[in-house]
C-alpha cells in the first residue's frame, strides 16, 4: 500500500527535515508543508482561468484564447503581467485601510481552508479533530472580506453587490453545512483524514465512497449547488452580475488587488470542491481497487479537475437567477431537502445493510423530493410587477383608470403646442 511514488512528497519532506537541527524542525516542517500548497493551488488557478475560457468558448462554438504562445498556453502569464503592471486606483472617498485589507483577507481566508484538506495519503497539513468545522468557520471569513470590499469602496454598485453577496452566502452556508452533516453523522468524525480513510476501503473492487449511497447522491448534489452559490459562481453570480451591477463588490478594484479577488474566488471554489471530494467522493482514494497504484494526490487533483469542469459546464449553460429566485431556492427547496437528508442518514445508519436499506432510503428521498418540487411549482405564481413610484396601478382590473391616465396625454398631445 505504501508505494514510494505515492509517498514521494512525504518521504522527501522527512528526508529534508532530517538535515535540520531539532529545535528548528517544527517551523521547518510547517514551511515545507505550506509552500507546496501555496504554489500548487495558485498554479491550478492559472490553469483553470485558461481552461475555463477555452471551455466556455467551445460551449459557445468559439475557439477561446489561442494567440499567446502555442494554443494560447501563455495566456495566464500574460494576464498576470498585465494585472501586475496596471495602475492601482483607489477611489477618493474610499476607506483606504479597509479597501487595502479586503483583497488580502479574501486571498488569505481562501488559503486557510486548505489546511485540513487531505490532498493525498498522509498529505494533510493539519489533522484537526474538528477539521470540517474549522473549514466552514474559515470559509465564512470570505463573507467578511467581501463586505469589507463593498463597504469601503463607497460605491453604490459595490455596496449593492456586497449586500447581495452577504445575503446569498449566509443563505447557502446553511445547506452547505447541513449537507456535510450527513457525512459527519455517517462517519462519526469531524476529522477530514478519518472521513477519507473510512471511504478508502473496498468491497470487491468498489470503494465505500459516500456518493454511492442514496443520501450521498442527494447530499453531494445539495453540497455542489450550495458550493456554487458560496463561491459566487454562475448561475449564482448575482453579487458580481456584470450586466446588472458591473462587477459587484470589487468594481472599485483594479490591477493586482482585482487579481487577488479573482484568485480568492477561485481558491474558494477549489477549497469547497476539495471539501466535496473529501466528504463524498472519497478524497484521495482510487475509484476502483486495482487503480490504487496511481498516486493518491493525482486522484485528488483529477477529481478536483472534474468538479471544476462541471462548474465551467454549468456556468456555460445556465442564466443568472433573480434575487428572489435565489432566496426561495435556498430556503424553500435546498434547506428542507438538506434536513430530510440528515433524517435519511439516521435511517440508513440504523437499518441493517442490504438491498432493503437502499430501497427504503431511496423512497424516503424520491417521494419528498417529487412532492416538494411539485408543490413549489404549483404555488409559484407570476405576480403583476408594479413600479413603486407610479400612482396608478397597472392591472387589468384598473384598466379604466389606467386608460384615462395613459391615453389622455397621447390623445391631447397636439393641443399644448397650440397656445
Amino acid at each position, binding site marked *: 500500500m505504501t508505494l514510494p511514488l505515492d509517498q514521494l512528497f512525504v518521504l522527501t519532506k522527512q528526508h529534508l527535515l532530517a538535515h535540520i537541527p531539532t529545535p528548528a524542525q517544527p517551523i521547518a516542517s510547517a514551511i515545507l508543508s505550506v509552500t507546496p500548497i501555496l504554489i500548487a493551488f495558485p498554479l491550478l488557478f492559472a490553469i483553470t482561468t485558461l481552461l475555463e475560457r477555452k*471551455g466556455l468558448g*467551445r*460551449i*459557445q*462554438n*468559439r*475557439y477561446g484564447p489561442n494567440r499567446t504562445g502555442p494554443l494560447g498556453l501563455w495566456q495566464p502569464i500574460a494576464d498576470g503581467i498585465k494585472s501586475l503592471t496596471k495602475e492601482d486606483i483607489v477611489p477618493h472617498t474610499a476607506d483606504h485601510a479597509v479597501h487595502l485589507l479586503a483583497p488580502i483577507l479574501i486571498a488569505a481566508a481562501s488559503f486557510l481552508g486548505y489546511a485540513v484538506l487531505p490532498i493525498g495519503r498522509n498529505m494533510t497539513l493539519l489533522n484537526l479533530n474538528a477539521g470540517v468545522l474549522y473549514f466552514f468557520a474559515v470559509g465564512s471569513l470570505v463573507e467578511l472580506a467581501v463586505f469589507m470590499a463593498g463597504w469601503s469602496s463607497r460605491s453604490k454598485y459595490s455596496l449593492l453587490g456586497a449586500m447581495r453577496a452577504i445575503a446569498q452566502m449566509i443563505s447557502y452556508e446553511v445547506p452547505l453545512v447541513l449537507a456535510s452533516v450527513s457525512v459527519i453523522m455517517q462517519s462519526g468524525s469531524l476529522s477530514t483524514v478519518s472521513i477519507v480513510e473510512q471511504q478508502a476501503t473496498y468491497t470487491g473492487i468498489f470503494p465505500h465512497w459516500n456518493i454511492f449511497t442514496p443520501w450521498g447522491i442527494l447530499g453531494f448534489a445539495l453540497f455542489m449547488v450550495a458550493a456554487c452559490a458560496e463561491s459566487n459562481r454562475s448561475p449564482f453570480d448575482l453579487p458580481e452580475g456584470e450586466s446588472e451591477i458591473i462587477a459587484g463588490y470589487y468594481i472599485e478594484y483594479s490591477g493586482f488587488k482585482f487579481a487577488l479577488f479573482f484568485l480568492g474566488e477561485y481558491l474558494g471554489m477549489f477549497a469547497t470542491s476539495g471539501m466535496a471530494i473529501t466528504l463524498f467522493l472519497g478524497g484521495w482514494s482510487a475509484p476502483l481497487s486495482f487503480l490504487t497504484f496511481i498516486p493518491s494526490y493525482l486522484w485528488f487533483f483529477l477529481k478536483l479537475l472534474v468538479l471544476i469542469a462541471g462548474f465551467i*459546464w*454549468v456556468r*456555460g*449553460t*445556465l442564466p443568472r437567477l433573480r434575487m428572489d429566485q435565489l432566496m426561495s431556492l435556498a430556503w424553500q*427547496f435546498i434547506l428542507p431537502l438538506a434536513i430530510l437528508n440528515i433524517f435519511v442518514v439516521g435511517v440508513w445508519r440504523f437499518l441493517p445493510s442490504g438491498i432493503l436499506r437502499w430501497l427504503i432510503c431511496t423512497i424516503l428521498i424520491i417521494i419528498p423530493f*417529487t412532492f416538494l*418540487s411539485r408543490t*413549489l*411549482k404549483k404555488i409559484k405564481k407570476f405576480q403583476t410587477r408594479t413600479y413603486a413610484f407610479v400612482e396608478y396601478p397597472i392591472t387589468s382590473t384598473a384598466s379604466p383608470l389606467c386608460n384615462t391616465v395613459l391615453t389622455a396625454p397621447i390623445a391631447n398631445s397636439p393641443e399644448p403646442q397650440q397656445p
Partner: protein
Amino acid sequence: MIGNGILRGLTETARNFFGSYTKKERLTTIQYPEERLPQIEATRDFPFLVYDGPDWHEGMRCVACQICEKECPPKCIVIEKSKDKKPDAVGKPQFYPAIFNIDISVCMSCQICVEVCPFDAIKMDVEYDLPTDDRFTGLLFDKQRLSKSNTYYNQIHPTEAAAVDTALAEERAKAEAKAKAAAEAAAAKSAAPPQAAAQPAPQPISGETK
C-alpha cells in the same frame, strides 16, 4: 420534474463543446491574420489614385482640379497643383498634382471625393491591413503610396472599373476623332500650319477647374 430544463441545457452545451472539436463548420470565427473572408465587391474603405499604363506618374489620371480637396468633409486631402503640364488619361495636356496627400487617420471613408471627381481619378480601395508603428507619417499617404494601377482597380471592383474604362475609351476615341478631324480640316485648308489646331482643345477644361 424539477431539473428537466437544466439537463436539457446541459446536453445542448455539451453537444456544442464536443461538436466544435469534430465539426469545423460549427466554428464560425475567422482567424484573422491567417484566414480572411472573401472580398465583397462593394467593399470600400480609403481612397486611392488610379493610373493607366505601367508608370504611376506618367499615367496618373488626376489633373489637380482640387474639387475633392474642397468637398472633403473632414479636410483630409491636401493637393498642390504643378507648374507644368502632362497628358492626362484622355490625351490632353493637363496639370498634375505636385503634392497629393491623404491623411487616412482623418478620412471617414465617405466616398464624396470619388463621387465628385470628374476624371475618375480617385476611387475607393479595399485594403484594410494598414497598421503602422508611426501614427503621424505612417498614416499620411503621399501620391506615390496612393497611386494604384487600373488593373488593380479592375481586380477589386470589376463592374465599376469596366464601366469607367468604357466611358474613358469613348472619350478618348472622341478626342482622337476630334483631333484627327481638326488635323484633316487644317491639312485640307492649307498645308502650312498643321500643328496649330490641336492646341486650343484643353483650354475649356482648365478654365472650368478655376
